[in-house]
């Protein structure tokens, strides 16, 4: 597992750059990760990120777009607006969670 240093944080990441240990994440790191993919975090982004973190803690898996919409109450359309093109991957990346499965 590659180790990288980002903004003073030493983090373990997968080959695609997703954090492999969700406990290495904090809100400061989220802003840095978001900048890496060209996103400036707003309150709306934070709503999504906090839902992702909470749901991951409860379920143990990165939620799908459908789940963020049905359980988290944030419409899929909004997610595409906040995290353009590849919302499922980008949300997980910023929230420091594993890349979502479901792609099998």
């Amino acid at each position, binding site marked *: 597992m590659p180790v990288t240093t980002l903004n003073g944080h030493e983090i373990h990441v997968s*080959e695609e750059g997703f954090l492999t240990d969700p406990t290495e994440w904090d809100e400061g790191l989220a802003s840095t990760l978001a900048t890496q993919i060209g996103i400036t975090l707003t309150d709306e982004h934070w709503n999504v990120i906090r839902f992702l973190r909470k749901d991951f803690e409860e379920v143990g898996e990165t939620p*799908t777009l*459908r*789940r963020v919409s049905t359980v988290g109450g944030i419409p*899929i359309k909004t*997610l*595409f607006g906040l995290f*353009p093109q590849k919302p499922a991957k980008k949300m997980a990346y910023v929230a420091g969670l594993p890349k979502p499965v479901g792609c*099998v």
Partner: protein
Amino acid sequence: MKKLLVLGAGTAGTMIVNRLRRRLSAGEWNITVVDQDDVHPYQPGYLFLPFNILAPEQITRSRHATLPDGVEYVIGDVDRVDAPTNTVTLTDGRHLGYDYLVIASGTTPRPDQTPGMLGEEWQRSIFEFYTFEGAKALAKALQTFDHGRLVVHITDMPIKCPVAPLEFTFLADAWLRERGLRDRVEMVYVTPLPGAFTKPIASDALGSMLDERKIAVETDFLVERIDVENKALVSYDEREVPFDLLVTIPLNMGADFVARSGLGDDLNYVPVDKHTQQSKTYPNIFALGDASDIPTSKAGSVAHFSVEVFTDNFLELISGKPMTGSFDGHANCFIETGNRKGLLIDFNYDTEPLKGKFPLPVVGPMDLLKETRANHLGKVAFRWIYWNILLRGRPMPISTHMSMVGKTNNTTTK
């Protein structure tokens, strides 16, 4: 008398009762299986109906004929499972008790879940081929389709048999060429994935096969609705893909009774341990086949390999031992590519589809991820194997666990 109750007499459910009836004492164990009708379809055959390669009567049999003596077969619709009291209620009010329950009720295409899909264009210019009726309707539509935009579309993952949309695309391309119509048809493959398939090496191989056939690919496309008036798919990020003939794979969902029983996730799949298929909530409930949430393909081969692990585990469990079998996510799929050729892929939770020979190194006879005649013949022969060997739970000469033998492993990606 102990009771094993199986919901669903499809590929997984039928294999389970066939294997377990032989191994559970008739004096100690009652086995009951429930399904809503008496028609067992050979689902891989649906792919061939639109092109008249198989006739409708070649792909169904009576479920009765596939079940062994000594298994009680109940025809009925499940209303709900009351897990705390170990009871299943049918919609006609019948109650069935159990000591162990297997949910094998599969997954179903749900065109009702996408706005516009089930509208006035349904089965006029919008078709699917994952049901018997849908595949027959598409066969009829293809007879008169001679020009325009043919769009093949996946609504969202996971879907049953994730290679089938690609196979349909390859077969449609070959079929149009044979009729001299290919130049008059623009073909587009629309997918929510970032490429032609889910795993990188297979995605590259299959992607270049789409290129060679001049089939455009629209990736990362998550459909929000169908614009019925303008006949176009519209994505959440407001891209539009117009069509004259749309062949869509609607959203796939597990059975509604799973949701009513509080046993499902947001797509009605039962959360289970991915190595034992045991429910994460109730230790006497298992979900096999497409009904579970395990992170591998929803495919008959997965049902087959996981049922082999499950039945051995089940015998250990009921004799009070720990379950020692562990399913590795093994899947093995033939991919028809047109012109009587085919591809073969073999993979599991940790190893993506690789190139090489199968099942033996050098001699094969099957080539992995390569178009050959032998792979096509394998697929053709499989229908006989399905009815006569697989469903009966007889041994197959393929290992339950994926093997690296014969595979070319020059990457170590996970």
